[in-house]
């Protein structure tokens, strides 16, 4: 054997941990089992903290939350068979939102592969369409190079999840370990990734002649680290900025040029601005159907410039006039020096004027009528953090549904990575485990879970993980006794046929109590902020059950098939009392 003297002989399991340490992994989320026991046997020899989850779906969401909060690659681990299949929802969530995650799964011994052995499942086959790439490793000597390549694939270009399936015999066999020699070949840039000067010139020309430009700010700004460039770009020409859900916080929401979230539940002025625009600058976003509405009527007067790292997104949904394929920050760096300056505020003034009536109708501006609305709760969580000066030190992790949209509307995100939410896949049950990942990544920050009573119960078992790890995570359950978004759609499109949307929940405060986690019930607005403060300053996990209006709706709303400007506005005449059950 060559290199015996220079490089230590390690087992495959030890090689895996040593490689993870070398890649900078400090925390891993997982659950042991038969086919991964050799790896767990070596765990304690290495400086990596292992968080024991209660369900493997939690492990993949935690790795996802860890990656979203820190910008580093999140790592999760599960055994073969059911352990691996339980990861699937979390992997798909990371895929749809382009989150760098590496999943390690144990696999039965290579000698019995394909024989339907106990707890054998073809996880590389199962995850093929929901990973950026995946690997099956059957030899100890391949582990280091494969895992290093997996990290590179996960974080390069458009990030995404990667799965490495390692057979039990590969974990047990020994091989020489050389971290440096296992380095992958440098990432090959996509050959289409050459920003062309001709296209650049075309883009500048379109920007120069535009009277009503709008920037569409997407998640790519966060992944590319292009925040400063986008702010400079917008300020140079007074271009208003609309955000996608995952783009919230990429551009400061309280910036005078920020319009807020666009799309299905975007404010009326944002969507009207897009429909009236003569130029759309799409920065790291993919014209998802939730932001375009009916494509046939989307931004009919606008030229479109798309800056995007993934060439397969160009013209996928919306035909663009100029496509600049490449890293957003680098492309903007090239564009900025050529960009003219303008002090013209006519366009942003016009948009601000159109806010008028919408702002008055906003629930936040209505007097306290004795009812508690989710919008109040979320807005008060933001106010409380702001008053405490903790805004850049607060991460909100939402679940999926009405509360998610209210969060996007009423929590003003100024900092990138301050909102963690499942956008593309819309995974209920995401919030609690993702928050655990976020807290593990950023222990110094305040982490809030905002979840509905439905989604919270999907992964509520992870309360026990919080208790075991002693994480000080604050949990706000927005409890309206319904699967709220389903109920709203049934109300709007299915004649209020509330089939299977009412949901009975346990007493969440008692549930938290059973895990040794403190909690409180809140049903009046005056108690929101004091309880939020109590939770934030308790230094421990704290659950608040907010008992809110049962039949409240998220507005504005664009019905399926409707154009972006054909939104259902907030009802004008004290809407909330009309739909609320009076006491």
């Amino acid at each position, binding site marked *: 054997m060559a290199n015996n003297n220079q490089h230590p002989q390690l087992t495959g399991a030890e090689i895996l941990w040593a490689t993870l340490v070398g890649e900078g992994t400090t925390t891993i989320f997982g659950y042991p089992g038969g086919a991964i026991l050799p790896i767990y046997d070596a765990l304690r020899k290495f400086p990596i903290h292992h968080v024991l989850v209660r369900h493997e779906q939690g492990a993949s969401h935690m790795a996802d939350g860890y990656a979203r909060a820190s910008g580093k690659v999140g790592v999760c681990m599960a055994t073969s068979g059911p352990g691996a299949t339980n990861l699937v929802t979390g992997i798909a969530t990371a895929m749809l939102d382009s989150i760098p995650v590496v999943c390690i799964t144990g696999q039965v011994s290579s000698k019995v592969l394909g024989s339907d052995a106990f707890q054998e499942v073809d996880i*590389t*086959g199962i995850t*093929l*369409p929901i990973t*950026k*790439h995946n690997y*099956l490793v059957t030899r100890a000597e391949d582990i280091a190079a494969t895992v290093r390549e997996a990290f590179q*694939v996960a974080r390069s270009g458009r990030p995404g999840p990667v799965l490495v399936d390692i057979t039990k015999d590969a974990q047990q066999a020994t091989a020489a370990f050389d971290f440096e020699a296992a380095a992958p070949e440098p990432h*090959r*840039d*996509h*050959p*289409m990734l*050459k920003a*062309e000067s001709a*296209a650049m010139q*075309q883009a500048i020309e379109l920007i120069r002649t535009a009277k009503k430009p709008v920037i569409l700010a997407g998640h790519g700004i966060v992944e590319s680290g292009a925040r400063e460039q986008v702010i400079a770009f917008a300020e140079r020409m007074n271009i208003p900025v609309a955000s996608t859900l995952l783009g919230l916080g990429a551009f400061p929401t309280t910036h005078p040029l920020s319009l807020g979230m666009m799309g299905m539940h975007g404010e009326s002025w944002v969507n009207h601005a897009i429909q009236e625009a003569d130029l759309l600058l799409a920065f790291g976003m993919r014209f998802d*159907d939730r932001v*375009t509405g*009916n*494509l046939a009527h989307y931004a009919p007067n606008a030229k479109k410039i798309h800056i995007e790292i*993934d*060439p*397969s997104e*160009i*013209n*996928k*949904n*919306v*035909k*663009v*006039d*100029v*496509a600049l394929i490449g890293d957003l920050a680098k492309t903007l760096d090239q564009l900025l020096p050529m960009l003219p300056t303008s002090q013209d505020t006519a366009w942003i003034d016009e948009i601000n004027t159109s806010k008028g009536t919408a702002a008055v109708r906003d629930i936040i501006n209505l007097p306290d009528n004795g009812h508690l609305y989710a919008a109040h709760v979320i807005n008060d969580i933001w106010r409380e953090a702001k008053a405490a000066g903790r805004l850049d030190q607060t991460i909100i992790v939402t679940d999926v549904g009405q509360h998610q949209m209210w969060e996007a509307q009423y929590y003003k995100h100024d900092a990138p990575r301050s909102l963690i939410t499942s956008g593309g896949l819309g995974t209920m049950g995401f919030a609690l485990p993702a928050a655990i990942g976020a807290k593990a990544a950023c222990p110094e920050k305040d982490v809030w879970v905002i979840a509905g009573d439905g989604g919270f119960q999907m992964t509520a078992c992870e309360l026990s993980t919080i208790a075991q790890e002693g994480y000080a995570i604050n949990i706000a359950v927005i409890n309206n006794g319904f699967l709220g978004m389903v109920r709203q759609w049934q109300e709007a499109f299915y004649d209020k046929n509330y089939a299977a949307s009412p949901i009975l929940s346990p007493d969440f405060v008692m549930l938290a109590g059973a895990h040794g986690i403190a909690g409180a019930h809140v049903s009046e607005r005056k108690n929101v902020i004091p309880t939020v403060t109590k939770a934030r300053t308790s230094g421990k996990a704290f659950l608040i059950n907010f008992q809110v209006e049962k039949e409240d709706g998220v507005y504005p709303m664009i019905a*399926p*098939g409707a154009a972006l400007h054909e939104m259902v506005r907030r009802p004008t005449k004290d809407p909330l009392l009309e739909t609320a059950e009076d006491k």
Partner: protein
Amino acid sequence: MLHTFVALVSDKPGVLTRVASLFRRLSINIVSLTVGESERPDVSRMTIVCEAPETAAHRIKASLYKLEITVDVDEVGRSEAVIRELCLIKVAAGPAHPLGQHSRSQIFELATVFRARVVDLAPESIMLEMTGAASKIEGLIQVITESGYTILEVSRTGRMAMRRGHHTSRVLKALGTPNGEKPASPDFATKPATDEIVPNQFPDIHE
């Protein structure tokens, strides 16, 4: 319309599944797919023919390139490439045939006209081998059938494609020198100008 893509991919287990799965996800029917060795030891060459809207080509190409196993992708049109298919046809003929021994000689004549070769002669059948464009193969099959013969088996490889002339050297250059040296930066044949890229016409999924 029919699109023909040439993809250079790593020669590893599971690569075919990844490519096939991509077409499945895009709901595009593969008309033919051939895989074989290329001039590089660790790289396989695939020719994929698929039926898709004219405007889908860019997205298919970009999506193919997104697969980690893909080294290079090229879309070739009929005029700029040599596109060939190999076909084996087994026809019932021989002493037992109604035409008797004469049945064989007629097949030989047809084979000569179409430049097909006789590769097997059995008491009750003849096997022909033919290379050519798909239309030529279909022509031979049609003529055999119309002449009253029974075709027992047909096996076709599906199309293989290679760019003509200078494109070939360009691709070779992009792939590195013949001694196997890897390219510093693969040259993605030609990047379409943005005004050539038109939106795809996949069924509208926006419900």
